[in-house]
């Protein structure tokens, strides 16, 4: 079949639109969300722009890392969303401001009212969501999941090391660095909550290229003691990777 390239006409754009839709061999979002993929899945993601892009976006969504200049807006949106959905949780803590119920769609207001009726007089006041403050990497926390410390998100330089918070009861950590398509670049095991970035990862950390890294915590017998975690990082364009 003839693929018209580049997409300079309506028919060409339509063709690309169809070609870039998720196909029957595309991975489910559940699979795309996994840090590590099996060989067949990796092979598909490497050759499928749809799955490759979807996986990059999903890993970014999971990581939820801030970008420059958006912190205040994102905080406001999160707070506002919570206020609209669970007004009882914030009503006694702060006066309503900004976008009020009067600006909500009718269906949303009705739904909220219905929920309120269903719940009756059950009101609860909770503390606002805690703001994440990175702690000392060496500190020990009891946690349901490994907490990644760095590298996270966009970087100005290739990271010197990979660091996470120590997990109570962990005797060793398995660390992996992966391409977005799931191809494993490097793997190691360590007893410390950090590891120096090896040359193979430095070389792979090309500008504007997203890499994923994952950490699993295990006790002395090899049993998991926390949920494994993953994160992504990306060296900004224009930075020369060391060791490349």
């Amino acid at each position, binding site marked *: *079949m003839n693929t018209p*390239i580049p997409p300079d006409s309506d028919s060409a754009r339509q063709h690309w639109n169809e070609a870039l839709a*998720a196909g029957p061999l595309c991975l489910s979002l559940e699979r795309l*969300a996994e840090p590590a993929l099996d060989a067949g899945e990796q092979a598909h993601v490497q050759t499928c*722009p*749809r799955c*490759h892009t979807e996986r990059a976006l999903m890993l970014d*969504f999971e990581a939820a890392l801030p970008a420059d200049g958006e912190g205040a807006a994102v905080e406001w949106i999160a707070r506002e969303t919570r206020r609209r959905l669970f007004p009882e949780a914030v009503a006694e803590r702060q006066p309503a401001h900004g976008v009020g119920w009067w600006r909500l769609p009718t269906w949303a207001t009705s739904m909220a009212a219905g929920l309120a009726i269903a719940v009756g007089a059950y009101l609860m006041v909770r503390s606002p969501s805690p703001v994440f403050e990175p702690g000392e990497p060496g500190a020990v926390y009891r946690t349901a999941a490994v907490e990644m410390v760095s590298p996270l998100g966009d970087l100005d330089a290739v990271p010197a090391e990979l660091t996470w918070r120590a997990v109570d009861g962990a005797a060793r950590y398995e660390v992996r660095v992966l391409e977005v398509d799931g191809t494993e670049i490097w793997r190691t095991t360590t007893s410390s909550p950090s590891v120096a970035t090896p040359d193979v990862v430095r070389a792979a950390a090309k500008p504007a290229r997203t890499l994923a890294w994952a950490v699993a915590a295990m006790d002395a017998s090899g049993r998991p003691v926390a949920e494994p975690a993953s994160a992504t990082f990306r060296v900004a364009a224009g930075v020369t990777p060391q060791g490349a």
Partner: protein
Amino acid sequence: MSWQDASDEELLQAYRQATPADKRELASQLFDRHYTRVARWCFRFTGERESAADLAQNVFVNVYRHLESFQGASRFSTWLYTITRHECLARLRRDRGRPEESDEDALVDVPTADPGPDTLAEQQSRADYAHKVLVDTLDEVERQVFTLHYGDDMPLDHITRLLRLTNASGAKAYIVSAKRKLAKAVRRIDARGERL
């Protein structure tokens, strides 16, 4: 009871078994973990906080409506991503006056394809050539920009924010570069007589 250390899946399990009053509390606790994640995505999509808050609200209202039926075929955050992405693209279609897809399409736990063998082969062969050209010709960022722009009809300014592109002209530069490379590639392919 404190659910601070519980996983999302444990919270969901408790939610399914809870009384109506407790369900609301459990949903609130679950959502607290994800407001920022959804807010960030929506803000990058719209570039404006009021409309992003409307989008985020729609996402969580949809999640709340279907939380009972979510059976955990995927992680909660994966399901949430699916709904967030769907809501953002639906907003794009609404803004352009195009018919919306059913919400239900995005609200199943995780959609998986189940085509017959003939359909599978036909669809795959149609896409394979295009994919090969893209993979052979474009770099990673160009492919992502191209896929979102031509595959999802996503505007370039949205893509710039979603991919956090910091170059002066954002996604536009990548599209220009991609089209130039594709034009060069097709001339090369035509010259060799390899066009399928």
